[in-house]
C-alpha cells in the first residue's frame, strides 16, 4: 500500500502539468497573448497614448449605454421566462424531463444566424406577428415590429434563453426534495416555502444563468443588425465595423477593451450583490 501511495505521489508531481500543457499553451498563445496585443494596439494610435479611448467614449458612449440597457432587459426577460420553465422541468415534468431538456437545447442545433433570420420572417411587415397584433389593435395600421427595440431585445432574449434555463435547472435539480416538503410543513403557504427555501438555494443557478445571458448579449451585434434599424445598433456593430471596414485599429481595439472592462465591472458588482463568486 505504501509503495502505491509513494508511486502515485511521484507520478502526480509531473503528470498533471504534462496533461494540461497542450491546452493551456494554446489558450496562452491564442487567448492571453491576443488580449495583450489588443491593449498594445489600442495605445498605438498616430497621436499615441489615450486619444483612441477618448474618442471611443465620447463618440460611442451612446452605443455602450444602449448595449448595456438591451443586455440587461434581455437578461431580466430571460430570467422571468427561464425560471418558471426550469422549475417546471425540475419539479413537475416527471417522465417528460429528458424530453423537455432536449427541447430547451434544440435551438442550439440550428444555426444561430438562420434562427435570427427566422425571427425576421416572423416579425416582417405583413407577417404573422404584425397581422395578429394589428387584429388585436395593439399595433396601429402602419405599425411595425421589425426595426424596433422590441425586435432586437426579443431576439437577444431568444438567443440566450437556454443559457439561462440550464444553470437554473441544474441548481433546482440539486435541491433535496425532503427540504421542500419540510418547508411546506413548516411555513403556512407554499409561496413562503418557495421564497425561503427553493429560491435561495437556486440563486447560484440564477447567478450563472444571468452572466451567461448578459455577457454574450452585451457583445452581440447580429440581432441589432438583422432585426433593428440604425437606431438600435449596439457596440458590437461599431467594433466589427471599425475593425473590418474602417480599419481604425487603435480605435477598434480601445472599444473592445472598454467593452471588456464594462463587463468585468458589471460582473464583479453583481457578484457582490448576490454574495457568490463561483461562476462554473
Amino acid at each position, binding site marked *: 500500500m505504501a509503495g502505491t501511495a509513494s508511486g502515485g505521489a511521484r507520478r502526480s508531481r509531473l503528470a498533471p502539468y504534462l496533461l*494540461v500543457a497542450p491546452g493551456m499553451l*494554446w489558450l496562452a498563445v491564442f487567448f492571453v497573448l491576443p488580449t495583450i496585443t489588443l491593449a498594445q494596439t489600442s495605445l498605438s494610435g498616430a497621436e499615441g497614448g489615450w486619444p483612441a479611448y477618448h474618442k471611443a467614449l465620447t463618440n460611442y458612449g451612446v452605443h455602450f449605454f444602449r448595449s448595456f440597457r438591451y443586455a440587461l432587459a434581455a437578461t431580466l426577460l430571460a430570467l422571468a421566462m427561464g425560471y418558471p420553465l426550469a422549475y417546471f422541468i425540475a419539479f413537475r415534468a416527471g417522465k417528460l424531463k429528458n424530453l423537455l431538456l432536449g427541447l430547451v437545447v434544440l435551438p442550439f442545433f440550428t444555426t444561430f444566424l438562420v434562427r435570427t433570420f427566422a425571427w425576421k420572417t416572423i416579425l416582417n411587415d405583413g407577417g404573422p406577428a404584425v397581422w395578429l397584433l394589428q387584429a388585436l389593435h395593439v399595433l396601429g395600421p402602419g405599425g411595425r415590429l421589425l426595426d424596433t427595440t422590441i425586435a432586437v431585445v426579443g431576439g437577444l432574449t431568444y438567443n440566450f434563453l437556454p443559457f439561462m434555463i440550464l444553470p437554473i435547472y441544474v441548481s433546482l435539480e440539486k435541491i433535496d426534495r425532503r427540504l421542500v416538503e419540510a418547508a411546506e410543513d413548516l411555513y403556512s403557504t407554499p409561496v413562503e416555502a418557495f421564497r425561503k427555501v427553493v429560491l435561495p438555494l437556486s440563486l447560484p443557478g440564477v447567478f450563472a444563468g444571468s452572466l451567461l445571458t448578459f455577457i454574450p448579449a452585451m*457583445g452581440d451585434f447580429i440581432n441589432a443588425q438583422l432585426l433593428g434599424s440604425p437606431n438600435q445598433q449596439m457596440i458590437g456593430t461599431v467594433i466589427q465595423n471599425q475593425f473590418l471596414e474602417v480599419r481604425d485599429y487603435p480605435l477598434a481595439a480601445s472599444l473592445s477593451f472598454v467593452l471588456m472592462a464594462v463587463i468585468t465591472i458589471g460582473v464583479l458588482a453583481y457578484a457582490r450583490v448576490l454574495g457568490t463568486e463561483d461562476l462554473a
Partner: protein
Amino acid sequence: MRRLGRWLMDGVAVLVLGYLFLPILVIVLYSFNRPAGKFNFVWKAFSIDAWKNPFAYEALYESMKLSLRVAALSTAVATVFGTLIALALTRYKFRGSGAVNLLLVLPLTTPEVVLGSSLLSLFLDVNVRTGFSTIVIAHIMFSVSYVALTVRARIRGFDWTLEEAAMDLGAPPFRVFFKVTLPIIAPGIVAAAMLAFALSLDDFIITLFNAGNRITYPLYVYGARRAAFPPQINVLATAILLVSLLALGATVLWQQRTLRQRGLAVTPLA
C-alpha cells in the same frame, strides 16, 4: 391560491417552450417554400424543389464543406486538449490547478466580439494572413474550455480504484489507460466532442474576424441577406438539425446501454 400559482407557473412554462420552438418551426416550414423573389422571407407556395436540389448553389455547398472541415479538425484537437486537462483536474491535486480553472472559465466570460477582435489584432501584429488555418486556430481556442468543463463534469466521482486494481494485477500503464480509463470516460468525451462540433459549425462572430476571404456556412448566410436568400439555406439548417437529433438520440441510447451493462443507474441527459 396554491392551485392558481401552479397553473400560472405551468402556463408560463408552456408558453416559453412555444417561444423556443417557434423559429425552428419557421426554419423547417420555409425550407418547403417557393419564394416569389430571391429572398425566402415571405410565404408563397408549398414546394419540395429546394429539397430535391439542396446543392443548387455552388457557393453555399462549398461553404458547408468548409464548415464541416473546420469543425472536424478543430473538434479533434480540442477534444484531445480538453480531455487531458479534465483528467489532470479530476485525477490530481496540484499547485496551479486554480489558475488552470480560471484560464478555462475566462474565454467563456469574454464576449465573442472581444475574443474575435483580439485574436485578429494578434494575427495582424505578427503578419499572419487570415484564412483556413486561423479559423481552425480560433475554433480550437474557444472549444477547449467547453470540452474540458464538460468532460470534467461527467467524470467527476468515478471510481478510480478500478485503475489501481488493474495496475496491482500487473497491467502496464498504457494497457490500463486503453482497457480501463478510456471506456469509463468515453461517454463524457463523446458528449464534449459533439458540443465542440456543434459550436464550431455554428460560430459566426469569432469566425467573421478571422476568416480572411474564406466563407463558412454561417458567413454565407450572413452575406445572403444582401444578394439572395434561397430556401436551400433552410434545407441545410433543417438537415443539420435532423443529423444532430439522430446523433444525440444514438449517444443517449448508447450511454444508457453501457451504464446498464455496468449495473449503474441511468443518468439524465444534462
